[in-house]
């Protein structure tokens, strides 16, 4: 005889889970009791949102499914932001929540919330389990759904009487999950691939626009090979950073709102856009009518609903990015090198490089560049959201996939610190840096408690400008410098870290940057760096909202 809780823990182990992030509470007591002597490692966070972000960070860094666990009601509700974050970036996590006993469901019982109803719009799928017998099957399905096709979060809600309920014999387990309503397409349509080859042969100014889908399908190698074979320049989205080495000669860096000028010019002038694992997000396209206005578009994505959603495309190819790139590589003959096109891009690169005022003051871009030079290529950078994220995206040279962990779609402030904990458990041998702002770090700063308790060796670099910097920047540029509720009083972050038993340094001048970063890297365990940066430094270039991508402003503040 086995309880539902036991079946759950066994099921998690069978799925290969080693680490879960969670927070106990009333109705998950039976599950926590099973965890007590199970070999699963459970990390006790300080807020359930952090459990979801940690599971998400784990998934992004490892490519495997991350798992978080919370109690009913407030516990489950606190997961929602984390689940939505994972949903927007297609990250595979399984969130397990406790629920009030089935007899009380729908009665507004203590700590009851309709979490399957609440998370319906932000999960790939979710389940309310009705009997213990169903737990193994549902768990198996959940991992399958989360990790295949276009990945995403799946939530399993388990009422207390289901986790205490028992089965006489183990329910049978299927070898492979098969769901009649879920059959992702992996192989590209031959005719469309042939049409893509045709367009590729005719193009004179082709450009690859690559995104998070390349990372998710582990297709970086194929992407680089494809680009090199054809000598096609590549621009990546925020989510695609690391898919191509940042210093690769064909790489134009990021495009879009805070993209490089040359990437945005290239998109505007290209005659063929090969969109790979992307979704034409508004932060990338700017004004849609003027995005790649002269280009035929090939769109490769595993999710058919993304094709034609925002922008009409000429050749849709639904399937796994890696498979399709592999096929394209095989079918393409090495062709012309687009000499004129490369010359043009070279000119833009020379004339409009990424730049900032290098005047000896402590500027964030400099810090990121120094960090980029100090870390190894497979060390991992996590970011919060806002200016800190954009400076990192612009100035850190990502050389490998899954070394850049950031909340792109939802733009969740407070993501970085908890996510970096998950990243550590996925890649315990790598240095993990959380690049933060003083605003976003304070959204989940309680996780210093978790980091201290488990001695998670995360290095925290706060780019502290005592503002909600990105919002302040918009107020400066678009709201007549009316800084409405964006100024934050100074906080002594080092003292906060010390209160948790974590060491730290405050850095106030440019000369101290290198040695401070080295100290953080070389000190075993967690470390906090509080960089007091130029307060009104902006992220440039910026495409104003609703403008065309080639109408960037502030690109010339050198």
């Amino acid at each position, binding site marked *: 005889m086995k309880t539902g809780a036991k079946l759950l823990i066994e099921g998690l182990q069978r799925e290969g889970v080693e680490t879960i992030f969670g927070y106990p509470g009333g109705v998950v007591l039976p599950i926590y009791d099973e965890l007590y002597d199970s070999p699963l490692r459970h990390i006790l966070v300080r807020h359930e949102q952090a459990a979801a972000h940690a599971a998400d960070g784990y998934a992004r860094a490892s490519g495997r499914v991350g798992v978080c666990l919370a109690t009913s009601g407030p516990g489950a509700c606190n997961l929602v932001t984390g689940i939505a974050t994972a949903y927007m970036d297609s990250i595979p996590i399984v969130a397990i929540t406790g629920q009030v006993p089935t007899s009380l469901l729908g009665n507004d019982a203590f700590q009851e919330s309709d979490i*399957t*109803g609440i998370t*319906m*719009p932000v999960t*790939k*799928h979710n389940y*309310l389990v009705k009997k213990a017998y169903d737990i193994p099957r549902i768990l198996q399905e959940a991992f399958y*759904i989360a990790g295949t096709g276009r990945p995403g979060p799946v939530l399993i809600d388990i009422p207390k009487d289901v986790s205490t309920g028992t089965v006489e014999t183990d329910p049978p387990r299927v070898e492979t999950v098969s*769901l*009649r*309503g*879920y*059959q992702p397409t992996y192989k590209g349509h031959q005719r469309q691939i042939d049409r893509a080859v045709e367009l590729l042969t005719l193009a004179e100014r082709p450009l690859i626009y690559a995104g998070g889908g390349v990372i998710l399908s582990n297709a970086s190698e194929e992407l680089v090979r494809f680009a090199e074979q054809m000598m096609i320049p590549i621009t990546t989205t925020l989510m695609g950073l690391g898919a191509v080495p940042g210093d690769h000669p064909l790489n134009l860096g990021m495009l879009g709102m805070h993209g490089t000028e040359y990437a945005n010019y290239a998109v505007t002038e290209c005659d063929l856009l090969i969109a790979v694992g992307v979704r034409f997000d508004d932060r990338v396209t700017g004004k849609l009518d003027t995005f790649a206005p002269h280009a035929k578009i090939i769109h490769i994505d595993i*999710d*058919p*609903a993304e094709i*034609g*959603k925002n922008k009409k495309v000429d050749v849709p190819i639904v399937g796994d990015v890696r498979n399709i790139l592999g096929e394209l590589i095989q079918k393409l003959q090495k062709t012309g090198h687009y000499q004129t096109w490369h010359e043009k891009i070279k000119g833009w690169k020379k004339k409009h490089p990424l730049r900032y005022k290098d005047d000896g003051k402590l500027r964030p871009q400099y810090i990121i560049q120094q960090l980029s030079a100090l870390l190894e290529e497979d060390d991992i950078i996590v970011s919060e959201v806002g200016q800190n994220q954009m400076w990192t995206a612009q100035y850190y040279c990502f050389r490998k996939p899954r070394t850049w962990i950031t909340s792109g779609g939802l733009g969740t402030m407070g993501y970085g610190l908890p996510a970096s904990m998950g990243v550590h458990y996925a890649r315990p041998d790598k240095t993990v840096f959380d690049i933060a702002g003083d605003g976003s770090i304070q959204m989940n700063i309680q996780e210093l408690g978790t980091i201290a308790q488990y001695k998670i060796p995360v290095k925290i670099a706060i780019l502290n400008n005592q503002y909600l910097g990105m919002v302040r920047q918009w107020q400066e540029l678009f709201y007549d410098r009316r800084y409405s509720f964006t100024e934050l009083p100074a906080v002594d972050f080092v003292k906060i870290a010390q209160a948790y038993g974590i060491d730290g340094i405050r850095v106030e001048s440019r000369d101290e940057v290198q040695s401070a970063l080295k100290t953080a890297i070389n000190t075993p365990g967690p470390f906090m760096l509080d960089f007091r940066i130029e307060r009104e430094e902006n992220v440039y270039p910026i495409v104003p909202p609703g403008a065309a991508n080639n109408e960037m402003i502030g690109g010339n503040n050198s």
Partner: protein
Amino acid sequence: MKPHTLSILVENRAGVLSRVTGLFSRRGFNIESLAVGTCEEPGMSRITIVCIGDDAQIEQVMKQLNKLIDIIKVSDLTDNERVERELAMIKVNADSGTSRSEIMQIAQIFRAQIIDMGTKTLVLQITGNTEKIDALETLLRQYGVKELVRTGKIGMLRGSKTVKSGK
């Protein structure tokens, strides 16, 4: 922009209807009518939804619906040879002798049935396409329609073609 009739085969599970309607509302698609019930396949239900949109919007609706795990098959019947029916019940004022006999004549012409007769009202049941029901309602309005309820449209392809499982 025109009405499209979508026939959706779904797993007969708790919450599936709210997954479908939730998707319509959060993506800003309007539902004109909705009908749902069990169907020929055990464990499945069929939902018929009429919604208005241009081709790109309808394509997007269908693709998003297809992503729901509990949805087995989505078909747009609109550009196919099909039969569509809707049923309505109309409670109409009929207290004087003349209006009562006029209403019964109208019912006969429309092949509507009188399924309830009270001292002051009649209840008519009519089956047909949307236009036919609209026409009857318009005619009856002069007598005073007290209540009207429609099932929402259901539809099926003509001939041997069916909307079956297998995405």
